[in-house]
């Protein structure tokens, strides 16, 4: 779960990490007071979840209240398109209006976890305000990584190692230590998968301040962070995925026109790969999971059918825990609730295969046993539908 900048900064404040003075503005009418409070000069920042906001004009400096109003008008309620919004733009529902700050230097700092060593990793780069992936390509030497053993937690020498990398003498060390210690505590206590301060700025008194903040909470840990779940906002393009997850399904929309529905993530990926291999394009990833709940099949077909682009539907089930008859029953029920006007190719094998086939036959459907045969047939049906569509 991603947090908006102002939400992340609220958490930073709770953990005593310095951030600029700022106000959240959700309506234009709320703007004047904060701007006045900040003395007319301010930064107006569009609050969206997608990255790349700065380059897309989502962060605007205002020297006067009038400029602030213009900036706010240009952003609030409008979609903001960045390189991460996949050509659609994300609507700006709120603004963060902050003081303008003067600083000596900007750097990059983040805490994520490193899959290889299975430890939290602190990452610092002398290049602040630049995407870390870009830095990694252009100037990997400027990045310092320090891994923290999860059994001992963060230690003074981890922080020292990062700070020494900045080559600044001792000035600001206390401030940096406090910031990193508190941020690590936040990372652990709030189950962050990632917290990124970019840029982290060094003020004239050598103290450190988080000028921007990005934060992702581990979805698996949301059960112990009800306060965060309450403030959750979902970007438009992830609504479907989040909705699917609530139903116990794993869904990712793709650009193709061949829908698929599979039990198991690995098999679902492999099924997409086979669709592609046989010259078609998958319309989605969809894993109905390992359990035997017919309702899931109904929900899954429902999600698939929301995509008007799809030409054919491929159902691939290898029964293990999932029982073929449960899938067939769900399918039958789904059809009874809503007719499906696209061709459906099915592959059904494994646990209770026979019972499943019987149910399918009773509603006039057939299924393959062999995956390759099924996909080859899918291809024929697809080509027929293409011709039919032309």
């Amino acid at each position, binding site marked *: 779960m991603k947090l908006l900048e102002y939400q992340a900064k609220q958490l930073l404040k709770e953990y005593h990490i310095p951030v600029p003075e700022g106000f959240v503005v959700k309506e234009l009418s709320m703007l004047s007071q904060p701007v006045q409070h900040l003395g007319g000069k301010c930064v107006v920042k569009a609050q969206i979840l997608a990255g790349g906001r700065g380059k897309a004009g989502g962060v605007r400096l205002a020297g006067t209240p009038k400029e602030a109003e213009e900036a706010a008008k240009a952003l609030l309620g409008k979609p903001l398109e960045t390189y991460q919004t996949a050509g659609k733009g994300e609507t700006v529902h709120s603004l963060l209006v902050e003081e303008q700050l003067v600083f000596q230097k900007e750097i990059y700092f983040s805490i994520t*976890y490193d899959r290889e060593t*299975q430890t939290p990793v602190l990452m610092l780069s002398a290049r602040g305000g630049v995407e870390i992936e870009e830095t990694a390509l252009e100037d990997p030497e400027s990045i310092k990584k320090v891994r923290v053993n999860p059994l001992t937690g963060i230690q003074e020498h981890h922080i020292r190692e990062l700070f020494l990398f900045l080559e600044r003498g001792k000035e600001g060390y206390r401030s940096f230590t406090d910031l990193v210690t508190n941020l690590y505590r936040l990372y652990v206590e709030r*189950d962050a998968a990632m917290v990124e301060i970019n840029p982290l700025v060094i003020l004239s008194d050598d103290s450190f301040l988080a000028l921007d903040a990005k934060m992702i909470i581990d979805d698996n840990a949301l059960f112990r962070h009800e306060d965060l779940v309450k403030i959750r906002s979902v970007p438009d393009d992830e609504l479907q995925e989040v909705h699917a997850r609530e139903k116990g399904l794993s869904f990712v929309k793709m650009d193709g026109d061949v829908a698929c529905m599979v039990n*198991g*993530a*690995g*098999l679902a*990926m*492999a099924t997409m790969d086979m669709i592609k291999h046989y010259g078609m394009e998958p319309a989605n990833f969809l894993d109905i999971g390992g359990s035997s709940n017919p309702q899931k099949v109904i929900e899954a077909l429902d999600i698939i059918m929301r995509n008007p682009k799809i030409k054919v539907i491929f159902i691939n089930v290898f029964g*293990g825990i999932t029982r073929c008859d449960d899938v067939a029953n769900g399918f039958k029920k789904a059809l009874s609730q809503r007719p499906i006007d696209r061709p459906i190719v099915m592959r059904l094998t494994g646990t209770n295969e026979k019972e499943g086939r019987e149910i399918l036959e009773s509603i006039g459907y057939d299924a393959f046993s062999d995956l390759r045969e099924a996909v080859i047939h899918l291809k024929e049906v697809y080509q027929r539908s293409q011709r039919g569509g032309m």
Partner: protein
Amino acid sequence: MGIFVNKETQVIVQGITGRDGSFHTKKMLEYGTKVVGGVTPFKGGMNVEGVPVFNTMSEAVSRTGADTSIIYIPPAFAAGSIIEAAEAGVRNIVCITEGIPVADMMMAAHFVRTRGVRLFGPNCPGIITPGETKIGIMPGHIFKKGAVGVISRSGTLTYEVVHTLSAAGLGQSTVIGIGGDPVIGTKFTDCLEAFEKDPATEAVVLIGEIGGSDEEMAAAFIKEHFSKPVTVFIAGKTAPDGKRMGHAGAIIQGGKGTAESKISLFREAGAAVVDLPVDIAEAVKAFF
């Protein structure tokens, strides 16, 4: 033979009175697995499918002498159960649970290593040495005793592959689902190391997927230390950047962990990489 587990392995089921725990206790017993006990707090004294239930792992282990546990515990408590099992003194832990918080798993994974305990998973189907023992949730009937070792990050895709192997007359020595999470215990390389030493294993099938770098390490290991033929399939060639493909660990991040890069490393390491999972049996057959 096979690796890690065999017909002598004695198993405790953690969460035995739950829906999944009791169902799979039955299935494992049917397969011949030595399930010697179960644990559900406050239900000690009951029995499930004739298996005695204990209140704590330490009691279960000291009473039964079990060396292995399998965990069907909800995600909020699963990492704690792993630590409990390790403290109770088992040598192997198979964690089926999906959806454990990453922070919990980092702690548990590091802790079991300090004890020299082997963890499989989490978010995995378990481990099976066909004809001897099944410690997991896989459908037992598709497996066949034989000489092919199988390691995989996925569940149903493994069944698909094993099914075609068995159908082609290629039995399996041991089949391990290492799990689809970003933080797991036993990795591909650990399994390869064991397969290399196992006389019953003559060839290995490795089923990887996008995300992380376990396949990259496996490829390096194969290149340097592995002498038996390896057939590889990597799922997720069509997966986009930045999206989790069902498994929490199946995600390409900033262009890293793509199927293409993994495939090319395996090719360099001398493994046979197939394009489709349905081609695996044929590719393996070439080695026999």
